[in-house]
Structures are given as structure tokens and as C-alpha cells.
């Protein structure tokens, strides 16, 4: 909402500079979002009197003017405006002036004739869009007067952010009240005393829906002349951004800004039987509103009707047919209080948002209905002539007693941590317009004025006291209470360990939106029957591509890879940790899913992608393509930092993956995650020209089995003995079989067995492969002799031969 300083000063005196006032209002909770000095853009522009106009020697469309700008010498100005003529007054931008449109005025020669300034149109000055000719100024403006001053534009406009609870501040008087609370200066409210009335005109108001309309007042004014508003009124309205229409509508808008009370003027003779009925619309009833749109109404909507038909959408917009026109002579002026929820619902349902609905739905002041009506009637007769008919119609079925609140000063200080005196509290509340009376020794009885419907409880009064007392004046202390003991939190520990590990492995953390496109499941070739295709849908998505909640993190990461590849970044190593959203617990890949109270499962996942290159692409650190064992190593490390060792791997038929290069990680037959090479068709779907390796794990499932307890194992003081072992065996025997046999045979005496080579091809026979291990033998209790090691090693070889048919490779 916009207010201007000069306008505010008509309601309260204050000696504050604009920036000071802005600071005070802001610290009262009315944030000043901007301060605009209206005249500032017109600096350098003065009133000029065109004393002589002669033709330009070298141009048909230009003339040479001699212009009086209040100085000894006249200025010679070349001008091309069609309406320039001797004796007129027009704005002159003097040399050095920077116009709002960015033009800076310089001394110039136009077609050989010197020009010392510029005569301006309204558009050039940023006053309006009128560029047809020079802005004509009244003859009584003195030449040389700064234009801003002459036009009364030397005002300051403040843009205020009014919070939803402070409907009372959606008005100049409301803001003036806040200034009163701060300064203690008295308010100067408009007076309607001394109005004279004409004859009584028959009209009536019937409220059939008092639940929607607690108060409706009306007045009739006869014999008005619709026309343009005077300059002062136009200026006021324009300065706060309200458009100018005619004197009647402008007055209602002026009073709207002044009191925050929306008013509506009907053409009295267009009301059937000249009367008002406030009722619910009939279901399907039609009304053409002022914007010439025909609206179909429902019975939840309140209309203002005459004896026959709706003439306005209550509190939102008037009807087209009863609008004030140039021919209107008699008007019926409405001032009412409508139920905020009802106005809000109707405004929302019809998509009409007006200055009136904005205020009614936040709650106007039922106590200001009459004052605003009288003020408007007064102004209308002043500006449009006519007489106010005797008698105000005021139907007030919803009148309620003023709200009374018990205030305990001790409670105020208890809540705020202050040591405010009760007398200070009384002073503050009184300045805010509350009536305060002692109730008993420790309590005051506070009566809330009608304009503060937001104040209904003691805590609301405490807030009032806090903001006027000043948040700055409330002490800054530290809490004194007990600190609750946190519960053990394995999941956070797992999350942190996994994240640290992945970062240390060279993967960058990605964060993606929780949304996905319906097409993403096909793009990763998810099984038709996969439960993860049943994603939660958004009713109002930003776009179809963001219309579902993710059920897997893999599509996002593949899209990230695609984005990076498209931007020529091909060293791709990304991971993400996030919840996914599952409609039902049917995907079966998480034993420990957290089920949301809303019925949507929100398990937390960690997923990653490796694609393009690994390495630095530099001397000594060349690029290489990642492979299955890169992603497997990352997965192994991730499980290790969670203390998970007891897992098995199993191939899966997940279509996202290469059928021969993927594995699920199983913990007691429960799948906790999957990793492997993306299927070539998936790569194609994401336009990736190289292989990509993926993993996705359930953090909840990992947390369920994670263990961080460690026990020291003695470090042997005896030397170890290393033996290499190369065996040839059937190619389809998995590498973990011989490894398990080595450990099983050597028992504690095998410190480690490292597979260092796998070889297929000549001279190894077809269908066979060669595996080479370095086995480190050691004992915790003695130095192993060569003889003992040899014996053990031979037993290992013999067992590999016996159980796997493995031959020593010569």
C-alpha cells in the first residue's frame, strides 16, 4: 500500500524526515519497502512562458521559441511540438537536466539554430503517456517555478508492506494512528459536521444474509454533476497509484484510501424500486460486473441486489448496469461491512481481486462505516454539487459488543523478558486507541476499538506492547532451561559417514528437485510392473516435466550427466542424498522404510553416477574411462564405512542396468541397494555417448544394519611371509570362490590374500582363466618358518585343486 507524507500530514502532525518516519514505521511492523521523492525526477524542469514563436530558417517542422524561465534573459529553444504557440506556458527542461527517460539536456544546434533547453510533453517528463504535444500549464503558474513545486509534486511516496493481520493499516488514517502510537501526537480526523440535508428520498435496505453482511449503510445524493475531479484530488490519487475516473468514483476511492472503507456508488434510478437487498445469489444467477464480464454466481456468494436483480458483487465489484455514467444525477452510496471469509471465498472462486475485496477479506472496520459514508457524501456534494438527502440508512444486524481483554502486566513481562511498568503499558495501549481501565490489583480491562479486529487475546495486546515499546528495547538474554538429552541417531551418523566417504572418493554432491517427469520411468527402462511407477502426482505442477514426486534418484542423476555432457563437461562423478516418495510399500527394496503419517513412504536414498572420464586428463594423471570396478569400489567403501560386511551380491534383471554388469547388495536376502553399468538403451535415452555407472541405496536399510563398534586387534610382532599363487581354473567360477577357500584353509595364518591378476587367453586354455594372488601368511604367536609356510601353501594349492579343479599355473 502506498501513502504520501503530505497526505499523511493532513491527519497527524509529525516532524520526521522521510527516512526517520520510514525507520519508525518499519520498527512498528509496517515495513517501508521503498521511499520515492516524487519531484526528484523533475529536478531542473521549470515553468516556462513561451513569449515568441518564429519559424525555423532551415526546417519546416521546427519553430524557434523565446521562453521566459524567470531569469533576466529569455531562453532560445527550438521546438517541434504541434501545439506550441505564443503565450502558452509549458515545462522547460533546462541545460543539464536528466529526464526520466534517460535523456540529458545539453546546449545543442538544431539544423543550425542554437537551442538552450527543451519544451516537454507529459510523456517526456514521465508524468503520463501523453506525447501528443507540449504539456500545457495553467497561466497562473509563475515562470521559473520548479515544475514539481508548481504541480504540488514535492511529496514523498512510501510503499508499505502491510501484514495480513493489519487490515486497519490499509488506510491513511490507519497509518496515522500508528504514527500517533509512536509520537503521541493527536489525530486530526475529517469532520462531517455542518452538512446540510435536502428532502428525504425513499429508499430501503434489507439484509437477507446477515451472516455475510453484518452492516450495510446507504445515503442518497441528488442532483450531482458527473465530471472530472479537481486537480488536488487527481494528484492525491495518482500519487498513491490509484487511477482517476470521475469525481464520484474518485471520491469513493479517496475515502477508501483515507478510511480503508470501500464504498460503492450506484445510479439511484437504475435500482429497481430504488432499494437495496443484500442477499445470497441464486444458484446460477448471472451478473455482469464493471469489467463487462458476465459472471455465473453460486448461492455461497453475496450480492447487492435491487428489487429484481443483482447490481453488485458484494465487497468485490459493482455491476455494469448500475454504474455511474455521465448522465447520472442521483446516486445511492453504499458503505458496508462484509464477512471477510465470504468475500475471500467469492473473490477466489471468481478470480476477481480488487482494492475493495483486498480490504474486506482482511477485515474492515465496522465502526467506520458511517464516518466514511458521511465523508464521501460531503466530498461529493463539494465536488459534484447536489444535495445529500435527509436520513442515513444503517442496517446493523451483526452489531457485537466491543471485545474486552484482561491484561496482566506481570504476564507481559513474563512473556517478553522485560521490566515494563504497568503505567507505561497503559500509556502505550491508550495511544493505540485501546481503552484501558483497572480491573483489580494485577489486571487491567482493555477494550478493543472496532478497527483492531485482529486483537482478541491477551497475547495480542502483549504484541502491541512489544512493538510500541520497541523490540530494540527488549533485553537480549540466553535461555536458562534444561537441555534435553538427544536420542541416539544412527541414521544421521550413517548419512554423515556415507557422505564423507563419497566426497573423499571424488564425487560431487548434487541436489535435484523432488519432481520428475512421467517419462523418466521409461527412460530408465523401469519394469512395467515396478511399483515405483506409481508416483505421487501433483495437482498443480509447474510443468508436466515436474508433475510427479521422485520414486528413484537415478533419472535426476542421469539428467545431470546429460546436462554436463551437453556443456562439454565429461568428468562426471555425482551423488545425491534425498528422500523419494513411494505410494505403497511394495517395491520391497527397503526393509526399514520410514512410513509417513500421510501414507506416503519417504525413504531416504543415496545414489551416484560415474560417467565420461575419471582422472585429471593431465600429464601423469591421464583420463581413463570408469568401469564396473570403479562403481563397485565406491559401493564397497560405502558399506565399509557403515560397518556393513555381511552382505552378498546377486545379479539382477533390473532393465536399467547392463544384464551382465550389475549387482544387488543383499543383507540376509533383503536388497539394500543396486549398482552397475547403465544399459546402453538408457545411455541412448539420455544422449550419453559413453558408459555410465550407477548406484542407489536405501539409507534407512543401511542404518538398520550399520555398526560402528570396533575392537582393537593385536598387531603381530612377527614377520609375515608372502607367497604368490597363480592358478588356472574354469572361467565361469566366480573369483570369490578360490578366495574363500584360501582363507578357509589358512585360517588365522592367512593375514591377507590379494587378487592381483586375472588373465584369459594364450597360453591359458580356452574356457579357463588364470587368477594370481599374493598371500601373506603370518602368525600372532611365532615367526613362521619357511617350512611351515610351504606346508600351509601346499595345502592351499591342494584344496583349490580338489574343490575347484584349479591347477597351478607354471
Amino acid at each position, binding site marked *: 500500500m502506498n501513502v504520501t507524507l503530505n497526505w499523511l500530514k493532513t491527519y497527524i502532525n509529525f516532524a520526521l524526515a522521510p527516512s526517520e518516519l520510514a525507520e519508525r514505521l518499519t520498527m512498528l511492523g509496517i515495513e517501508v519497502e521503498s521511499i520515492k521523492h516524487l519531484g526528484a525526477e523533475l529536478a531542473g524542469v521549470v515553468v516556462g512562458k513561451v513569449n515568441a514563436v518564429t519559424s525555423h530558417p532551415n526546417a519546416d517542422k521546427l519553430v524557434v521559441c523565446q521562453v521566459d524561465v524567470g531569469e533576466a534573459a529569455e531562453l532560445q529553444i527550438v521546438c517541434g511540438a504541434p501545439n506550441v504557440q505564443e503565450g502558452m506556458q509549458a515545462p522547460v527542461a533546462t541545460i543539464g537536466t536528466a529526464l526520466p527517460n534517460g535523456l540529458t539536456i545539453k546546449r545543442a544546434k538544431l539544423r543550425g539554430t542554437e537551442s538552450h533547453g527543451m519544451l516537454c510533453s507529459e510523456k517526456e517528463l514521465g508524468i503520463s503517456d501523453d506525447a501528443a504535444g507540449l504539456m500545457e500549464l495553467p497561466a497562473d503558474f509563475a515562470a521559473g517555478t520548479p515544475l514539481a513545486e508548481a504541480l504540488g509534486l514535492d511529496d514523498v511516496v512510501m510503499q508499505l508492506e502491510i501484514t495480513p493481520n493489519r487490515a486497519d493499516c490499509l488506510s491513511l488514517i490507519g497509518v496515522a494512528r500508528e504514527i500517533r502510537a509512536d509520537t503521541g501526537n493527536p489525530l486530526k480526523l475529517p469532520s462531517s459536521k455542518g452538512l446540510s440535508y435536502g428532502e428525504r428520498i425513499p429508499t430501503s435496505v434489507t439484509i437477507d444474509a446477515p451472516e455475510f453482511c453484518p452492516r450495510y449503510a446507504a445515503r442518497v445524493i441528488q442532483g450531482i454533476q458527473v465530471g472530472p475531479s479537481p486537480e488536488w484530488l487527481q494528484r492525491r490519487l495518482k500519487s498513491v497509484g490509484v487511477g482517476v475516473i470521475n469525481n464520484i468514483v474518485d471520491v469513493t476511492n479517496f475515502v477508501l484510501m483515507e478510511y480503508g472503507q470501500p464504498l460503492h456508488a450506484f445510479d439511484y434510478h437504475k435500482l429497481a424500486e430504488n432499494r437495496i437487498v443484500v442477499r445470497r445469489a441464486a444458484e446460477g444467477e448471472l451478473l455482469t460486473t464493471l469489467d463487462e464480464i458476465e459472471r455465473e454466481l453460486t448461492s455461497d456468494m453475496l450480492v447487492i441486489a435491487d428489487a429484481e436483480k443483482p447490481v453488485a458483487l458484494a465487497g468485490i465489484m459493482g455491476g455494469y448496469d448500475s454504474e455511474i455514467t455521465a448522465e447520472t444525477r442521483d446516486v445511492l452510496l453504499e458503505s458496508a461491512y462484509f464477512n471477510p471469509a465470504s468475500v475471500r471465498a467469492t473473490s477466489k472462486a471468481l478470480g476477481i481481486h480488487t482494492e475493495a475485496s483486498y480490504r474486506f477479506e482482511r477485515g474492515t472496520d465496522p465502526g467506520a462505516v458511517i464516518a466514511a459514508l458521511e465523508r464521501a457524501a460531503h466530498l461529493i456534494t463539494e465536488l459534484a454539487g447536489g444535495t445529500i438527502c435527509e436520513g442515513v440508512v444503517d442496517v446493523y444486524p451483526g452489531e457485537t459488543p466491543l471485545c474486552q481483554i484482561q491484561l496482566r502486566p506481570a504476564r507481559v513481562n513474563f512473556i517478553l*523478558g522485560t521490566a515494563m511498568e504497568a503505567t507505561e503499558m497503559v500509556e502505550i495501549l491508550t495511544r493505540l486507541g485501546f481503552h484501558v481501565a483497572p480491573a483489580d490489583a494485577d489486571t487491567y480491562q482493555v477494550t478493543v476499538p472496532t478497527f483492531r479486529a485482529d486483537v482478541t487475546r491477551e*497475547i495480542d495486546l502483549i504484541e502491541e506492547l*512489544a512493538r510500541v515499546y520497541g523490540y530494540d528495547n527488549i533485553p537480549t538474554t540466553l535461555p536458562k532451561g534444561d537441555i534435553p538429552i538427544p536420542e541416539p541417531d544412527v541414521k544421521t551418523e550413517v548419512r554423515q559417514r556415507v557422505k564423507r566417504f563419497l566426497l573423499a572418493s571424488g564425487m560431487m554432491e548434487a541436489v535435484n528437485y523432488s519432481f520428475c517427469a512421467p517419462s523418466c520411468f521409461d527412460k530408465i527402462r523401469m519394469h512395467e510392473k515396478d511399483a515405483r511407477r506409481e508416483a505421487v502426482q501433483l495437482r498443480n505442477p509447474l510443468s508436466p516435466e515436474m508433475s510427479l514426486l521422485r520414486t528413484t534418484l537415478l533419472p535426476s542423476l542421469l539428467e545431470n550427466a546429460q546436462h554436463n555432457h551437453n*556443456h562439454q563437461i565429461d568428468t562426471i562423478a555425482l551423488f545425491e542424498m534425498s528422500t523419494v516418495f513411494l505410494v505403497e510399500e511394495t517395491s520391497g527394496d527397503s526393509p526399514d522404510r520410514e512410513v509417513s503419517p500421510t501414507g506416503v513412504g519417504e525413504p531416504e536414498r543415496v545414489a551416484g553416477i560415474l560417467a565420461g572420464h575419471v582422472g585429471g586428463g593431465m600429464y601423469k594423471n591421464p583420463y581413463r574411462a570408469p568401469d564396473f570396478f570403479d562403481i563397485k569400489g565406491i559401493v564397497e567403501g560405502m558399506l565399509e564405512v557403515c560397518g556393513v560386511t555381511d552382505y552378498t551380491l546377486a545379479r539382477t534383471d533390473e532393465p536399467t542396468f547392463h544384464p551382465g554388469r550389475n549387482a544387488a547388495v543383499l543383507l540376509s536376502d533383503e536388497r539394500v541397494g543396486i549398482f552397475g553399468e547403465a544399459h546402453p538403451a538408457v545411455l541412448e535415452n539420455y544422449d550419453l555417448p559413453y558408459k555410465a555407472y550407477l548406484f542407489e541405496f536405501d539409507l534407512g536399510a543401511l542404518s538398520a544394519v550399520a555398526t560402528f563398534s570396533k575392537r582393537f586387534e593385536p598387531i603381530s610382532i612377527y614377520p609375515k611371509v608372502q607367497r604368490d599363487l597363480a592358478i588356472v581354473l574354469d572361467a565361469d567360477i566366480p573369483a570369490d570362490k578360490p578366495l574363500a577357500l584360501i582363507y578357509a584353509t589358512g585360517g588365522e595364518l592367512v593375514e591377507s590374500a590379494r587378487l592381483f591378476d586375472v588373465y584369459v587367453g594364450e597360453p591359458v586354455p580356452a574356457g579357463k582363466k588364470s587368477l594370481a594372488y599374493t598371500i601373506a601368511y603370518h602368525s600372532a604367536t611365532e615367526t613362521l618358518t619357511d617350512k611351515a609356510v610351504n606346508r600351509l601353501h601346499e595345502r592351499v594349492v591342494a584344496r583349490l585343486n580338489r574343490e575347484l579343479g584349479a591347477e597351478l599355473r607354471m
Partner: protein
Amino acid sequence: MQEELKQIRHEVLAKLKQVQTLDALESLRIQYFGRNGKLTTVMKGMGKLSKAERPIVGKLANQIRAEWSEAFEQTTQELHRQQQAQQLAEESVDITLPGRKPAYGKAHPVTQTLERITSIFTQMGFQVATGPEVETDYYNFDALNTPADHPARDLHDTFYLTDGYLLRTHTSPVQIRVMERQQPPVRIIVPGKAYRVDYDVSHTPMFHQVEGLLVDTHVTFSELKGILASFVWQMFGAETQTRFRPHFFPFTEPSAEVDISCTVCVGAGCRSCGGTGWIEILGAGAVDPEVFSAVGYDAEQVTGFAFGMGVERIANLQFRIPDIRTFYENDLRFLQQF
């Protein structure tokens, strides 16, 4: 024989001076002092000497050996030193060649900020609590004193789900969930994602918030000021000023917006802070009694405060990214910067 020995001595010491390499030195030693060396050969004639001469020759031979030994040792060391120096010179590398830098990842700038905020509050005794992102109207609005016809709902452009649920528009519903299952004292911090229908240079449809809640038998507004001032001090540095400004939130009363002195102009007023010298970073207030009654707490027996802040906004005070949607493109050139 003595002459012969003296001759050997003269010869070998002279040759020693010419020796250039450790190999040549070893040859010289073998040539004179080896099993078949010159000195050894001469000394084989000792037996033929007179009894009187023998001790003299023996002594002389020992002298020569001692002399040689010392000179040999010196030369060895010298040659060794020279050889090492030469080797080091040959091994010199161009130190401007690139290092073999191990790959290391970086946390996303938003989660970095989120974790930093969270850690500051956990150090002040707040426990991390979380809650669902798919929520109900009740937890997201009603229980937070924002009934259906409340104008404050206009400030939240909510994503609704087809089955009547919604995506939480703030992390505040977790307050309700925690208070429902726990009696005071409550001292929690809630980091998490929230969602609003908004998409422009300063809004993303998904964003992160950190919510805080402290409820106990006597928690005051002044303590809210204290906790948040401590936070600002730790997060933004001791020179940063904090300002509490009255505001409105349905679920707190009194409510405040908290500003910090502009990190760009240090309070002087600039474009970043709209000329005010202040930048809003969070909303806060004393827990509204309606919220307590929604969770079955007695507002006469307990008081509390709550606060919430937008993580992207705080992150961007430092990073100054012109379009915050960049956060969620996951462009590696972007992620590498933080």
C-alpha cells in the same frame, strides 16, 4: 724392501688423487691392498728379512695401511658426495608440471550452508528433528493457526497432491509433530526441504529451510533475541549487527523478522539491501497460544519461541548467485566453485 714400500706408498697416494669414481677407487684398493695387491705381494717377502729389519718393515707397512685407510675413507666420502650431487642434479623436475591431484568431491553449496546452520544450533543444545515432506492441511496450516480462510495462506503458493495431501510449504509442521509426541522441554532444529509454486531468479519450487523451536516452562522473547543474536554472531561474524522488527506470522506472537546488517555495504546502504543497510534473514516469534492448544500444551504453563530461515537466501548472502535456480542445475562448473 723399505724402499719398495715407500715407492708403493708414494704411488698409491698419488694415484688416489687422480681417482674420479667409486669404481676406480675400488680398483685402486684391490690393485695395492687386495689379496694379490702390490703391498700384499711385497709383504710376502717379509720372511726373508732379518730379525732386526722385520719390525721396522712391519711398522712401516702398518703406517702405510693406516695412512691409506684414512685417505681412502676421505676419498670415498668425497666421491660419494659428488656422485649423489650429480644424481640429484639429474633428478631435478620441472616443478611447474601439474600435480597428480586426487579427486575429491565437494558438498553442494546449499547443503554446506544447511549443515553449518544446523551445527551452530546443535552446539547450542538444539536437537535435529525431521518430518515428512508430504503433509496434510492440518499440520501445514490449521495446527499452525492458519485456518483455510486466512489471508496468510495467500503467501504460500501450495503444491497440492491429487489425493488431498500437499507438499509442505515450510518446515514448521515438524514443530507440531514433535510437540504432539513429546512433552516440554522441547529444543529442536528442523533442517529440510519445503515447496512452493514459484519459479523465478529468486525462487525455486523446492527450497530448504531450517526451523527452530524452544518450549519450556519459562521461555521469553528476550531469549529468542539472545539465541538468534548468537546464531548471527557465529554465522556471519562478530561485526554483523542484528535487528528485530515486528512482523506477522499466524503461528507466533509476538512475531519478528530478523535483519542483519548488509554483508555487502556493512550497513551503509547499497543495491543488495535496497538502500536500507539491512537484509532480512529469518522470521521468528513467541509460539502462539493457539499452536500450544493444537498440540495439547497449556499456554499458561509453558511458553516458547520458534524461528525459521531460508537456506538458499542465507547461502546466497555469501555466494551472490544472480539466479538461484542455478543451485539445482548441478552443473559441475558450478558445484566445483564451493
